[in-house]
């Protein structure tokens, strides 16, 4: 049986693309607040990256709380230091760092990660 040999460079490129695509998709948990389990919450339903820091902090902490409540391991889910990407009601998005799950202000928007609606 004959096998067609691919050039080593092409092989490496394909594997490299697979790794980069996988890393991009897997690195961050994305929470879509327009989904039914979040959209009716008063501090989430109309949220945008343009809202004041404090409002986004409270909203993101609440979203993270409901995410944890659904997980099978709430203590280790979204522990302090974790980051999540939150997509707000208007489609704008930002990365949020968890600082303290026991505080209503325990989530901090990461400066420079805010994205306008796509």
């Amino acid at each position: 049986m004959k096998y067609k040999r691919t050039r080593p460079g092409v092989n490496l490129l394909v594997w490299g693309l697979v790794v980069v695509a996988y890393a991009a998709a897997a690195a961050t948990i994305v929470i879509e607040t327009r989904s039914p389990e979040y959209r009716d919450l008063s501090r989430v339903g109309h949220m945008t990256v343009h809202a004041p820091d404090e409002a986004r902090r409270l909203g993101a902490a609440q979203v993270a709380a409901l995410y944890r409540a659904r997980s099978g391991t709430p203590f280790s889910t979204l522990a302090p230091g974790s980051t999540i990407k939150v997509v707000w009601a208007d489609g704008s998005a930002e990365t949020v760092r968890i600082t303290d799950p026991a505080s209503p202000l325990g989530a901090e928007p990461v400066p420079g990660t805010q994205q306008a609606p796509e």
Partner: protein
Amino acid sequence: MPRKLLLPILLVGLLGALAWMPLRQAGWTGVAFVDEGVDVAAPSLEGAATSGLRLQPATLRQAPALSSLRRGFEESTDLFAYSRELMMWASAGDADAMWLLSLVQDYCAGFAADPSGYAQDTRVIAKLGLSGGGAMLSARQRVQQRCARFVPQDGFSLPMIVNQRTQAAHAGSLAAEAALLAMDRPLQAGDDYRRELVQRVLDSGDPYAFVAIAPVMGSVGSGRGETLGEVSGSDLSEIAWRIASCRLGMDCSPGGSMMTNYCVNGGICSQDETQDFSTFARDAGVPRQGEDNVEEMVGTLLSHTGVDG
């Protein structure tokens, strides 16, 4: 090993590591990783050796009772009235009153920002059918009742709380100083200060200082054992600090502030509403093979205070 096999093997290893990171962050712990988790949680004796945070022999004793001002935070049914009393003490320079005031601000911030929205969200959450939904509703109602007289104009925000804790820390509140470290706003920069602060918290036996510093002792402190001490750097070590605070006299009962805050703000609620924090954490936060490990960590933390673990 043939060279052409090397690349695929490396890539498979990399993909495995990339897959593990988000699953770990999302709280997934596969059975195959249990042993590894225990290892991560194990106290870093090497770090302890260099940091100087060592076990000290001490006579075992019971945790001292909380002061009446501190008991007020757990027992008051009207935190607005309680905060007025605290303000009076704080204006007279009482550091603990300043710290307790920041706890009231933090406890009530979610409600005070929008009282009617808070009530609406409670109704929305009731319809979600969460497994710990009953406990979350009870906890939210407790916050709503205790914080009822606060309004958005009270302006409870992170800058306000940081400012309040900074004042308290300067006035001598160790708990406030520990909280600022956990909020990544330490009074002083540098590892020497952090190391010395951890040692002061350990020596103090102050339950509020133990709780306040706990967030930084979790996985966020991973790889900083030399600065943060032997019990740091994993989810289990954070739980150990909190359990130790319970042993030191913190109110860890089902209706206490710790369980309420965890449930309302973190979504971490016990399905058994009779469980206190220590029981709940062991039940839901500690893998069976890690139980002895946590107990050992709690013992290590309490050995500094001389309180019976």
